[in-house]
């Protein structure tokens, strides 16, 4: 991969640079180039971390940590086109590490929907449906959750998601199937009620 300096001048000129050029510039400790990488991918990483943690307060910190890993050694990304996958993988591993030490019971959102009872005021609240589903997703085993998030929410192809998770496509499909089955079981009868909420919304 040829490394050619795009521009070391003003920050605006980095906007059109390719990921490969930005990574190369980041290796030379050019903050402006790294800021453009951050701008391109932080939303994706944040979304995935948020889904994996069920909206935990540490989402922000874990997302930052993933980018700090990249800044510390941009050369770790062997192919620039796989940068997003690399970031998502690092962020997912960080989530697993952090919440292995800190049990999921601490999830802030979990308490709000733990008993599944619906108050009259929230009966038709779509946000409530969302929180219930998010909580059910957060309760899935780590790898199943990761597969579901990448494919269903990030709209990655099975091949791309499998590459991100460093597993075979067959293994990914198996994880997805188990995740869906697990979600159906977790939502159980509450799922029908949540569907009813969606149907009755104005």
């Amino acid at each position: 991969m040829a490394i050619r300096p795009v521009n070391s001048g003003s920050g605006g000129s980095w906007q059109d640079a390719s990921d490969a050029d930005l990574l190369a510039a980041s290796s030379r400790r050019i903050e402006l180039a790294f800021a453009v990488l951050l701008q391109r991918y932080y939303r994706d990483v944040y979304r995935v971390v948020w889904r994996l943690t069920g909206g935990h307060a540490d989402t922000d910190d874990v997302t930052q940590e993933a980018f700090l890993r990249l800044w510390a050694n941009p050369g770790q990304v062997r192919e620039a086109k796989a940068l997003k996958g690399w970031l998502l993988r690092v962020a997912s591993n960080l989530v697993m590490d952090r919440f292995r030490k800190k049990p999921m019971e601490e999830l802030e959102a979990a308490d709000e929907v733990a008993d599944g009872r619906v108050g009259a005021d929230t009966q038709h609240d779509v946000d409530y449906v969302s929180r219930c589903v998010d909580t059910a997703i957060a309760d899935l085993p780590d790898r199943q959750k990761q597969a579901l998030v990448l494919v269903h929410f990030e709209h990655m192809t099975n091949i791309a998601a499998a590459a991100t998770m460093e597993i075979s496509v067959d293994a990914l499909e198996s994880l997805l199937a188990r995740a869906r089955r697990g979600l159906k079981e977790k939502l159980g009868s509450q799922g029908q009620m949540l569907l009813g909420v969606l149907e009755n919304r104005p």
Partner: protein
Amino acid sequence: MTGIEREMTDLELDRLLAATSTPVAPANFEHRFMQRLRALEPLSNVVQFPTKRAVVSRRVFAPWPLAAALAASLVIGFWMGTGDPVNNLIDTGLSATALNDTPTDFGPAGLDDLLSLGSDTAS
């Protein structure tokens, strides 16, 4: 509610998944990250080991007495190697014997000497 619980279909699950809200990153995320990045600079790949006092104490490993002893042995070696002082000590008796024409009587040295000594006294 009918009270009959049936399993959710794939289509229904997809509807629920589609209804989830999309998380949005905080607006000032980039700014806060760059601040954190600058606070961490300069980054280094060198792993810093915790500072530790040397385990070897000066009492155990004292270089000056050892160096002095080595130097002294070197000087003595040269002094002995020049020849004269040690040779003089060793050769004093022999050289005196060589200069003297008369054989030196070292006393009886064996059975033959004792026998001859006995015959001399008898005669």
